[in-house]
């Protein structure tokens, strides 16, 4: 089976009944995607499939054949961090870091569909992602700052 992750094609050996999360972490070694609850509740395993944020723990490998997958490893371009990654660093929005990849990808998908949200829309947009350090204020501020800098 062939899948496309971060603009690169891979032939994968995992069977169809393997979760996308396990394929990414254990077969492709892309461990930026985290496994939290494994039930679709925490958002740690969020990746983008065809630009949409999904929980990779609830998707099986067979479903993503021919799809375009983006993980946290695919966000920086030519060594330059994605604006959201930079904003998270600048705002100190990373504590233990476990939720960060999932939240950044959820925030990216959210801002792509709603470039200038209110604070409450952001909070609702990332409500599928838990931060057990509870660092939500800085996370929301980081996302707000990217939305502001995109304002034309």
């Amino acid at each position, binding site marked *: 089976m062939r899948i496309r992750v971060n603009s690169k094609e891979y032939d994968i050996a995992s069977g*169809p009944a*393997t979760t996308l999360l*396990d394929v990414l972490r*254990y077969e492709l070694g892309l461990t930026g995607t985290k496994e939290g609850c494994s*039930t*679709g509740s925490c958002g740690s395993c969020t990746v983008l499939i065809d630009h949409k*944020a999904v929980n990779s723990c609830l998707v099986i490998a067979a479903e993503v054949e021919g799809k375009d997958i983006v993980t946290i490893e695919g966000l920086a371009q030519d060594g330059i961090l994605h604006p959201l990654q930079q904003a998270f660093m600048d705002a100190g929005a990373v504590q233990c870091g476990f939720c960060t990849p999932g939240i950044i990808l959820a925030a990216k998908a959210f801002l792509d569909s709603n470039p200038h949200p209110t604070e409450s829309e952001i909070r609702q947009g990332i*409500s599928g992602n838990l931060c057990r350090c509870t660092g939500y204020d800085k996370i929301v501020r980081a996302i707000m700052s990217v939305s502001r800098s995109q304002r034309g």
Partner: protein
Amino acid sequence: MTSVSSIGQFSYCKPGSLQETLKIMAEKGAGARILAGGTDLILQIKQKQKSPSLVVDVKGIGELNRLEYTEALGLCIGAAVPLSKILSFPIVSEKYSMLYQACSVIGSMQIRNRGSLGGNICNAAPSADSAPALLCLGAKVIIASGKKTRIVNLDDFFVGPGITRLEHDELLIEIEIPNPPKQSAGCYLRHTTREEMDISVAGVAAYIELFPELKVPKEVRIAMSAVASTPLRAHSAEALLVDRPITEKTIEQAAQTTVDETKPISDVRASAEYRREIVKVLTKRALRKDCEMLGIDIQG
């Protein structure tokens, strides 16, 4: 390399047509499970609640991806259309606001990008958020097998937790929701212990349709979730509100009557007693909100 483990022993197929899917269903029977968004099924397989021998991915079937609105027929939603796509279909927020409210509180952005309306009702959770709104809107479901196609009122679709009228060889094709009449309003309210990403303690949808030129209800529908073994209508409560002006007293009586129609359980989210109280409160709030939308001054 660490070995990658699979979540179950099943084969996977992705048929390209409805006919092919129905043929597979007829051959495999109970061993086959339909996969749309997978937000319930994959979890059920992981948690060993279901162990299908075959998973049939229906995301590629045209009929199940239909999302259309016409004045005459209303809204047709293919069973595999993801919730996020339904929410961004403009007519849904314009004309079917109670369905919009219900779909927007299901799961998270990630869940709504995968999960479908068809999945929400086929999984038949007593707490299914879309069900009360669909029941109030008079939704019908189109069901097909290799032998025949049938139309079932959603009122007759739910049998018990996780159980519907679907036979093993049958597939839910689409959900049809008639055009709401001009003089009508509806809303869906639910109570959760946390604001987002939670399963409801109880949910209530209320729909009021008025006689033309009068502020008197011609039809009232009240539907509830998470207070019985299936989502259900509160028919006796509805009857109390029809053909007479709405007053605080009739709202109070109707709300009290909805409680009599529930059979709640106590679980980790709430006690049965609390659910009975909440369903009463939500019914009153939902009816008052409908009245507000219809410009009705509720008499004391």
